[in-house]
């Protein structure tokens, strides 16, 4: 399987969950989009840059607090959520979701997708 096909498969796992508006693979180091399946109107590159920046701050803060690197994080908002699983090889697996999404299910699929792209 090529890397691109693997990425597509990983994103498919996430976007098939009800309430997910899109998914992305983002380089954690520089915030660049590696692959994406987003609904129209979502500015993938800008969201990727901010997600990567937030991920870096969170990782450093959590390591400083002694709880270890983040395995999953979830930015909650009134109108939806951004859900992220960092992988050991520096890729962030990101989902953008509706407010009533099944967070547990998305988390599982993000973790499965992270296995595919690692």
């Amino acid at each position, binding site marked *: 399987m090529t890397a691109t096909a693997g990425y597509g498969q990983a994103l498919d796992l996430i976007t098939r969950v009800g309430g997910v508006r899109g998914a992305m693979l983002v380089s954690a180091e520089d915030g660049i989009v590696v692959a994406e399946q987003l609904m129209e109107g979502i500015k993938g590159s800008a969201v990727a840059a901010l997600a990567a920046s937030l991920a870096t*701050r969170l990782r450093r803060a959590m390591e*400083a*607090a*002694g*709880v270890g690197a983040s*395995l999953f*994080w979830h*930015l909650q908002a*009134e109108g939806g959520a*951004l859900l992220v699983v960092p992988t050991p090889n520096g890729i962030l697996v990101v989902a953008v979701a509706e407010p009533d999404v099944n967070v547990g299910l998305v988390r599982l699929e993000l973790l499965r997708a992270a296995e595919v792209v690692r």
Partner: protein
Amino acid sequence: MADEIKKLSSQLAQDPDSLVFLRLAELLRHKGQLDSAHRVAVTGLERHPHLADAHDLFARILADKHDYERAFDEWDMALRIAPTHIGALKGLAFLYFKVGDVEQAAAHLEAAQRAAPDDQGVAQALALARGGQVPQDTPGTAPAAAPSPAPVEEPLPAAAQPLEEARVFAGLEGAEEGLLLLDASGRVLGGALKNAQGQDVTDAVAAYLAGVSQEAARTTKLLGLGKWTGVAAEGRSGHVHLTAPTGDALLLVVRDRAVPMGRLAIIAQRAAGAARRWLEAHG
């Protein structure tokens, strides 16, 4: 009292479903045997989970052990079961006093007075509340035999002092090792963090979190998701929850992995309430 404890223990052993555990745990609590009282109350609650008096009793034991957060949960549960439970209303009033929320404390005492207009203990506590004074001890004994709280003559403990003099998270669990309030630039306004080894990591964590509130707001705005309400994160050996109690201020709660994420969100919600009141009082 020792004979009474022995007798009740024996009765409970013969009939574990008996409600005698309420009296036994109360006696043990009065004797200062809090661990024994705790065990008896927990066992009783396992058998009678919908008994408001049992939750009230357990809450008073927890409050005696200074576990105020769980005491709040138990009194809250008692009120869900019995909305006019006097012991629970007095207990919650006591906890609100401890964090400086005199208004909420008075509201709970007023509710207790409506439910039990002849209860002198409630009337006295309400008078103290309106006069700005605070009951010193965990409220009440058994609801059926609740004595009047003693009038306050001693100096107030720090956690019960008026809001402007109290620490931001006074009375909340983890106030000095797992709760942190920051301003937009990462300056520590209250609370503290310690790692598993007991080392103070407050400043290091604060430095990394500077600007997070603004970035979270930009991200959700860009996605058209409206106002951000929280960030929940799982770590290898602990969980964190971030929220913005007001404007650019940032609240961080850290707990080990044994604490479920949902509970962390509840802790964060309560701490955010305390932070908001503190921030309002401090301009």
